[in-house]
């Protein structure tokens, strides 16, 4: 009887300790999860800002301006366009 009680006591102590450790583990993991989620949100925000920046740089008005002013590009007139007929091949 005493033996059994001792075994049960040992089991109880073991359980109690493992509860404490797992609880601690859970907290640590949770804190980590929180940190990662905060990071994810921050990246999300940054992604939005980068998209905004990209679309601002890629505005047709800006591209056209650079093409015309800096690169001196222009549309060819009708007389300078040769149409290749693909259907007769």
């Amino acid at each position, binding site marked *: 009887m005493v033996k059994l009680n001792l075994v049960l006591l040992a089991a109880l102590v073991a359980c109690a300790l493992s509860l404490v450790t797992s609880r601690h583990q859970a*907290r640590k993991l*949770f*804190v980590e999860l*929180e940190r990662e989620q905060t990071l994810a*949100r921050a990246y999300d*925000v940054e992604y*939005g*800002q980068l*998209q*905004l920046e990209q*679309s*601002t740089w*890629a*505005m*047709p*008005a800006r591209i*056209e301006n650079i093409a015309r002013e800096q690169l001196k590009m222009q549309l060819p007139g*009708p*007389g300078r*366009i*040769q*149409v290749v007929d693909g259907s007769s091949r």
Partner: protein
Amino acid sequence: MTAVNVTRAVAAPKLPRLRAPLLFGMLLALFALLAARSLYLQWIDNAFLQEQGSSRYSRDLEVPAHRGRILDRFGDPLAISTPVKAIWVWPEKVEATPGQLQALAAALDLPPTTLAAKLDAGDDFVYLKRAVAPEVAAHVAALGIKGVHDDDEYRRYYPGGEVMSHILGFTGDGDVGQEGIELAQQVWLGGTPGGRRVIINRRGQVVEDVANIRSPREGRDLALSIDSRLQYLAYRELKAAVELNKAKAGGLVILDARTGEILALANWPSYNPNNRTRVVRERMRNRALTDIFEPGSTLKPFTIAAALEAGKVQPSTVIDTAPGTLTIGKATIHDAHREGALTVEQVVQKSSNVGAAKIALSLPPERMWSTLSGAGFGAPLKSGFPGEVSGRLRPAKSWRPIEQATMAYGHGISVNLVQLARAYTVFATDGELKPVTLFKESGPVAGPPVLRAETARAVRHMLEMAVLPGGTAPKAQVPGYRVAGKTGTAHKLEGGSYVKKFVSSFVGFAPVSSPRLVIAVMIDEPSGGQYYGGSVAAPVFSSVMGTALRLLGVPIDAPMSSILPPAEAAEVEEET
């Protein structure tokens, strides 16, 4: 008990008999009071203490939800919300050295005098600056000035600026839609922040989730039918034309002829939604949807279509328009130039008012009404755009002959520009009226059949004649593509009578062999000398259509060399 016993033991001989029980009773009563109080606090009035307790370890956190983006048809963002900071103070609680204030003014990019004025504004809460970039806010916080705080908020940015502003609209305080699509689609775009209750530790870190109070609902993205490239093109050309013709306003709509999607919708004057501090409401109107005008001759093809449908005329039927006037009752209709005998085709090509009126008068009003109504005139567009108007088409019963005659060439009826563009889809297709939409469709959309296919093809041919030499709009031609369209030059109605101010318009589509785009151009009050639709609106159509078809990679259906440089004289002046 011991205390009581001791007292009795020492003092018993001198004390009155009732003293001990009295004291005992009193002490017991006090204990009972304590017990009652603690029971009361534990079970009945426990809110305060519980709150105090939980405030030591529990926090309700807001889970932010951002507003959905608005995208164009290729997924490029047109409107994005991004978190920013609002810097605010209670002026009386600010403690700062002059040096700190200077640094603050520099960080916020405010003139020091403005900052001083804000700090002197009284004892109320004051925003120093809103929508500050997070880095700037961090810099301000690093200055460590007492009484300067920041709050999170969202700000919406529109990379397209003034090019897209009329379609998108904008959001106001709290990122809630106020105009345009932002307003119309508030429920879809808007996010609802969630909340959760957590346990924090001594250092303020969250250690456990207790409950989810409310799940956040993120705003959803919205894909519009707009093609940013075409939108920019439309806006640029429209702006140039309005400035060239010294006009009051203008509008341009590009529809996909196969789906009814609005690919571009430009208005002038415009405004920049990113900076609205000094914008008058006048500039914010999306005129193409919210303003109506009398369409003028752009309506003639529908009169002709009604007559063809009724079997009253054939495209080759000859109508005598001599002597260029037609008197109905007390009113007289004029042609600007006398033409004599014209076929029905030529009535459209040369845009003869008398011809169109004669054809209209051969029809029962109900027939004409049903064709106009079938083409969507007088009925709402159901675009879902706030403030959209439906135009006016009076019931056929109330038409007098003169009204029927003037309606034949687009007076006494009013439309908005998108409605007019949509109506032309019946000629661009084989008689189908495509439903217009601002939202992206995945494939061709069928519309209700309005005209017989032969009628639609016959009118399409007439519209092609109108842009060829001898028609009213040779300037609408596009090198390499067959185009079709109709000019309109309408006197404006002011205070019930027609004045010498005009609305010049052109509506057309291309390529004629398999129409892809319908474009409607409207220039309001051109005052640069020219006012005919053929010389004001048609060139805009031509340049937008040519570039748009090239951008979309639509195969050419006419030889590149077929185009004749439109000679000024080749153009036929149209009726007004």
